[in-house]
């Protein structure tokens, strides 16, 4: 029956596509604008959706921009869920508050090859080189765009930008003036609300502040029984932008948050000699402050200097972590000289953590400071002006764990004619060892021999090398008229020295010295695996009429692990990411100021030694209404045709099923 409805829905959508003649959007607005005086023009409200989308149009990389309009029309309540719109990204909702998110394979709860930045601040944690998605949030209405680069961005962004870079950019304070109040509730969204106020601060300065809160209900497990994975977070922040003398620009911004995130986590309890599942009621809190100064020069280009401090506290019952990070970043973009566009920069990053573990998992030492010094240089050289551009760049880094790293990158972009763009690139990127891989002791088994208790434990290693990627990519972006555009990219990624647990050392019987009656039999983490990952992504945008936009994307992914070992870690095991995924989105403007938006996702099965998740289809839809220009009412149903489905499996965190859910929302702008 479910299939029948799904079929009807899809047929309906397809029917609509053929019914509407592809008459492209006109520009009757121009006639209106033409009548206006210069004064009146300065009071016109503009939208720059298309500009944002075109901003990266000549980047020789697989880029995708999620605009503020996409976020609003998709009815997203989290940044993590919005990433489903990006072709080539894997987004799996593990439990109500936890996600596994990766780009081009390697998906796991602790996926570790993605660099995520919010307004230039790195938000992945050096603890495991991954991202705690449950605390990455801001006022969604203030997000200008989310730029996603699939494939390595290491030449510019440095280590850990291996499989992709996600850049979340919020609007300048002057673009978010006035009061905005939004709120809503539903069955899983118990309640959410946000308030933002923007005001002038001085002659050439603007300031905004926001507060937001949400409380989300638990999901159900596969038996339909309620789990304990409800969560709530409150958050506040500000951003100020000042136009200084000349065209210099100063930004000062910060956020604080506090929340309580519940989930159930499995771990081996060495005192009870068995695996236990416990309620991981985690308290999270944190804050950050960032300043950025941009100086524009006449003949010498522009300079930017950015500094931030970030503190995160994650109080997981079995392993608490407090982390302080300081970062300073300098960048100089030179003007074009003899067809060369040079950009260079320097950075210094220091992070210090304090952990508090238990017998089952702890860090040795329990506190550590890590620093990273980096420099990069990039030259964009026009081989044939306006037609063929070669970009050559590299990042040079020094870190305590793996020493000196060079991550070069060569890109070629070709514009044979207006609207057609071909690109190819080859790059090297590394993922430096994380704090966990260096210092963790995680017990996975125990047995007594006489008075001594033996712990089998995964133990970090001092001589671990970086994981390395050599990536070949190519792509084609094209625009046919003003109503159709196509973006195709293909990649072949060769990974070396992926880390895994070295069973051999353990088999040979090397144990640690006996301490307090405990002997640790270590499974050292080592660089063990090589892997090839390849695939392609196709994305098409179609605007048959001014009031209807369609987006369709398909991604294909294949992982080949070169190893006979049976149990590689889940983030490198074959089958951790769907081989096929499809997304179909439709955004429709209706009469009487209604909007009707539908999103369909198909995600292929996950299948390996750890994961057994069947393929799933998901259909979301949203109805929006603007009774007045400043008021928006919307209603969204997620997972319309299914009671619930599973998206990921039990790896440390107990998975729950994504249910059918709905919520209503009101947004009022003054």
């Amino acid at each position, binding site marked *: *029956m479910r299939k029948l*409805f799904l079929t009807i*829905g899809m047929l*309906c*959508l397809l*029917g*609509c596509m053929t*019914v509407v003649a592809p008459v492209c959007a006109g*520009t*009757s*607005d*121009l006639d*209106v*604008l*033409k009548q*206006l*005086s*210069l004064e009146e*023009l*300065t009071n*016109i*409200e*503009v*939208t*720059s959706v*298309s*500009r944002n989308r075109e*901003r990266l149009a000549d980047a020789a990389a697989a880029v995708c921009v999620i605009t503020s309009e996409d976020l609003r029309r998709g009815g997203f309540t989290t940044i993590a869920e919005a990433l489903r719109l990006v072709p080539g990204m894997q987004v799996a909702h593990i439990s109500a508050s936890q996600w596994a998110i990766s780009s081009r394979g390697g998906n796991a709860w602790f996926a570790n090859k993605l660099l995520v930045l919010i307004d230039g601040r790195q938000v992945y944690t050096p603890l495991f080189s991954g991202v705690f998605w449950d605390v990455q949030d801001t006022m969604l209405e203030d997000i200008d765009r989310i730029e996603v680069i699939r494939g390595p961005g290491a030449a510019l962004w440095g280590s850990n930008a291996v499989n992709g870079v996600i850049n979340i950019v919020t609007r300048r304070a*002057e*673009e*978010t*003036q006035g009061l905005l109040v939004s709120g809503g509730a539903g069955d899983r969204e118990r309640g959410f609300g946000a308030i933002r106020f923007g005001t002038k601060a001085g002659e050439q300065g603007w300031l905004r502040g926001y507060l937001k809160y949400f409380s989300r209900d638990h999901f159900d497990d596969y038996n339909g029984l309620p789990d304990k994975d409800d969560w709530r977070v409150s958050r506040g922040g500000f951003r100020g932008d000042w136009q200084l003398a*000349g*065209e210099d*620009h100063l930004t000062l911004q910060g956020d604080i948050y506090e929340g309580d995130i519940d989930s159930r986590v499995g771990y081996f309890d060495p005192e009870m000699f068995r695996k236990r599942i416990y309620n991981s009621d985690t308290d999270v809190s944190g804050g950050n402050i960032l300043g950025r100064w*941009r100086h*524009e020069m*006449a*003949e010498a280009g*522009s300079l930017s200097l950015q500094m931030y401090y970030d503190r995160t506290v994650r109080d997981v019952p079995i392993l608490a972590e407090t982390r302080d990070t300081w970062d300073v970043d300098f960048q100089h973009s030179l*003007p*074009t*000289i003899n067809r060369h*566009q040079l950009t260079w920069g320097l950075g210094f990053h220091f992070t210090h953590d304090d952990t508090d573990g238990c017998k089952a998992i702890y860090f040795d030492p329990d506190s550590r400071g890590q620093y990273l010094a980096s420099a990069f240089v990039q030259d964009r050289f026009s081989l044939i*002006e306006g037609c063929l551009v070669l970009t050559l760049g590299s990042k040079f880094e020094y870190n305590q764990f793996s020493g000196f790293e060079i991550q070069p990158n060569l890109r070629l972009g070709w514009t044979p004619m*207006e609207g057609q763009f071909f690109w190819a690139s080859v790059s090297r990127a590394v993922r430096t060892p994380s704090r966990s891989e260096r210092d963790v002791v995680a017990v996975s088994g125990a047995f007594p021999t006489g008075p001594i208790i033996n712990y089998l434990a995964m133990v970090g290693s001092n001589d671990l090398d970086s994981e390395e990627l050599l990536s070949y990519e190519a792509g084609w972006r094209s625009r046919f008229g003003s109503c159709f555009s196509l973006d195709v990219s293909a990649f072949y990624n060769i990974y070396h020295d992926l880390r895994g647990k070295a069973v051999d050392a353990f088999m040979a019987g090397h144990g640690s010295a006996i301490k307090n009656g405990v002997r640790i039999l270590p499974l050292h983490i080592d660089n063990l695996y090589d892997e090839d990952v390849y695939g392609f992504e196709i994305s098409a945008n179609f605007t048959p009429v*001014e*009031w209807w936009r369609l987006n369709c994307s398909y991604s294909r992914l294949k992982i080949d692990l070169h190893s006979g070992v049976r149990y590689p870690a889940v983030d490198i095991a074959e089958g951790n990411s769907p081989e096929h995924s499809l997304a179909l989105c439709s955004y429709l*403007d*209706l*009469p*009487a*100021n209604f909007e*009707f938006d539908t999103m369909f996702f198909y995600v292929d099965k996950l299948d390996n030694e750890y994961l057994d998740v069947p393929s799933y289809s998901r259909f979301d839809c949203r109805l929006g209404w*603007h009774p007045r*220009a400043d008021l928006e009412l919307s209603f969204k149903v997620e997972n*319309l*045709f*299914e*009671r619930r489905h599973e998206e990921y499996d039990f790896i440390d965190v107990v998975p729950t099923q994504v249910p059918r859910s709905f919520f209503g929302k009101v947004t009022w702008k003054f």
Partner: protein
Amino acid sequence: MEVLNPGVAGKRLAIVLVGLLSVIFMTGSGRSRVLLADKKAEFNVSQVEAVFIYNLLHFVEWPAEKENGDITITIFGDRQVAENLKLLVGDERSRNRRVKVVQCRRVADIGDCHILFVGAGKLREMPAVRRQVAGKPILLVGDRDGFLAAGGMVKLARLGNRITLAVNPSAARKVGLSLNSRLLRLARIVSISH
């Protein structure tokens, strides 16, 4: 626990939605653009910028040698602005003179003109652009932060959801252009000497 069987609820919802879709396409396909406009009068940046550029013709005085013949507006590196400007200008005449819109992608192709608009992606080409137009009475217009610092004369600056004007009159004066006082009153004056 559940009062309503979710399966049934889902089916009902599906029927309602499918129905809704059909209704929309029977009644709504011919809907007009006007409805969108009263939802929120928002315009595309490129369109507004094109109109601004066109209007600037009335607020600038060129030296005598440029007061005859066609008026040329060159757009360097912003396809959308160029297309909108072409649509806008059409066959119109300004002060009884024909207006030509030229789009170019390379600095070397920039010829003599009245207004040169430098697109956002071409800001870093400014030193070369200035060499190319060296000393000629051409109004340099741009829309990116740093444009005036780099030698531009009029910046279509984003201020919130609006586009405002920032001008550097001394840069214009240097090449013999005079900016109308109404323009100067309306714009933010940025004084950068080069």
